[in-house]
């Protein structure tokens, strides 16, 4: 059986010469929920953008058994649901419905199936009535939920979220944590919110300066205050 996610010896340097990833190794098994933590500039977002081939570095990335490469990008992007940090980047259509329908539409599904997927995804994030609303007028928490719905509609094998609780008030954050806990998908979530990590993710990967510096059960990691301090984290 294949892993949902396999990254081996991944290197990436931005065009301006900034070395963002220096040999990352990571694998995620089906059904696992993994947190990706690390200080700003550690390479978290860069790593996430490699998982569906938006950035292409040196090394090996496999998703659901498929190599992330030229022939497979369509399938890979269907398998990885990537939720961007800024929901305004993710929600680019005039209405919520059109945004959630975007992925299914480009997957070539029939109109009926697209409608069904949209309704299902909006229900899953607890916003079944939001289809006709204009994205600009949603609150921050609602935007996050709709952004998650846009990838749920593609029925991905793994959900990849970049700082989902950033900028949310306590109530919206609580609602989002509950939502993430309820979703059955495999998950890789980049975050600074270590209290959420403790609550939701049994396994934590720490990235610092483009390398994986720890990959262990969350409880054990959070107990090691010296290690956390060394990598700019606070439990």
């Amino acid at each position: 059986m294949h892993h949902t996610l396999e990254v081996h010896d991944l290197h990436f340097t931005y065009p301006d010469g900034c070395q963002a990833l220096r040999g990352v190794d990571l694998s995620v098994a089906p059904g696992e929920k993994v947190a990706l933590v690390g200080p700003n500039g550690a390479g978290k977002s860069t790593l996430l953008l490699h998982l569906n081939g938006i950035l292409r570095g040196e090394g090996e990335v496999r998703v659901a058994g498929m190599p992330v490469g030229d022939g497979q990008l369509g399938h890979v992007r269907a398998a990885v649901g990537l939720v961007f940090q800024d929901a305004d980047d993710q929600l680019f259509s005039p209405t919520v419905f059109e945004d959630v329908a975007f992925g299914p539409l480009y997957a070539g599904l029939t109109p009926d199936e697209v409608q069904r997927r949209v309704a299902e995804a909006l229900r899953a994030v607890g916003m079944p009535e939001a289809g006709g609303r204009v994205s600009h007028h949603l609150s921050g928490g609602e935007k996050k939920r709709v952004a998650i719905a846009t990838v749920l509609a593609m029925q991905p094998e793994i959900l990849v979220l970049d700082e989902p609780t950033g900028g949310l008030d306590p109530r919206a954050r609580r609602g989002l944590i509950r939502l993430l806990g309820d979703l059955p998908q495999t998950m890789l979530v980049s975050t600074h919110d270590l209290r959420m990590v403790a609550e939701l993710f049994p396994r934590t990967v720490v990235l610092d300066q483009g390398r994986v510096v720890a990959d262990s059960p969350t409880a054990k990691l959070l107990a090691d205050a010296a290690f956390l301090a060394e990598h700019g984290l606070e439990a």
Partner: protein
Amino acid sequence: MHIHLADRYHAGASWIHTLDPRAKILMVVSFILGVSLAPEGAWLPFAGFFILLLWICVASGLGPTYSVRRSFVAAPFVLAALTLPFTVPGPTLFTLPVFGWTASVPGTIRFASIVLRTWLAVQAAILLAATTPFPDLLWALSRLRFPGPLVAVIGFMYRYLFVAADEALRMMRARTARSAQPQAGTGAPRRRPSLVWQGKVTGNMVGSLFLRSMERSERVYDAMLARGYDGQVRSLTHFHFRLLDAAALAVTLAAVGGMLAWAVAR
């Protein structure tokens, strides 16, 4: 904290609201063509076009003065035609005091006709925007074979205009928050910053807004790629062309064509 660049759409349940947006766009385009092609000085046909607009205002439940009240946004464009009375040769109508310029009769007629045409055309567009949700307009444009990239650009503009305006608002607030004056009595000189300096600050803000928008556009494109975007614009069918749509379009075409023929034949 949002700037509410007011949405022009006014929700309603009239039959005009329910018309297929494709039919509405064609109706408005034919109306604007008819108004533009009507010859100068065709006052009665112009009145006829206006009555058609009034009737649509009433039928759509917006009230008879709706489009007139909002039509003044186009007033500045009239300035472009303001020179006509004084430059077209012909019998003198009046002489402008102080300047001593003479306005000719044909020049004034041409000016008045241009103002009327603009005013009527703008009202038609206002009514279209007021009775059709913006996303439906985009959908209709793409179904009418309007070039896909253009429709996409208009769609993104509609979506991100608000975001960019919010960003500009935040930047202006940040500037205001730091535009403190030294307290009286501390010896610091009190003077207004020079106009050049203020201009430079504003220029820098525009520049950084542009850069931020560029960067955002790249992230948006990434987000589109991540969900399978392949360069084609796709959308679901929302409307089916019904008999009512065809009838409304036919009646409009007949009315516009009739009035145009009347205007030309006079």
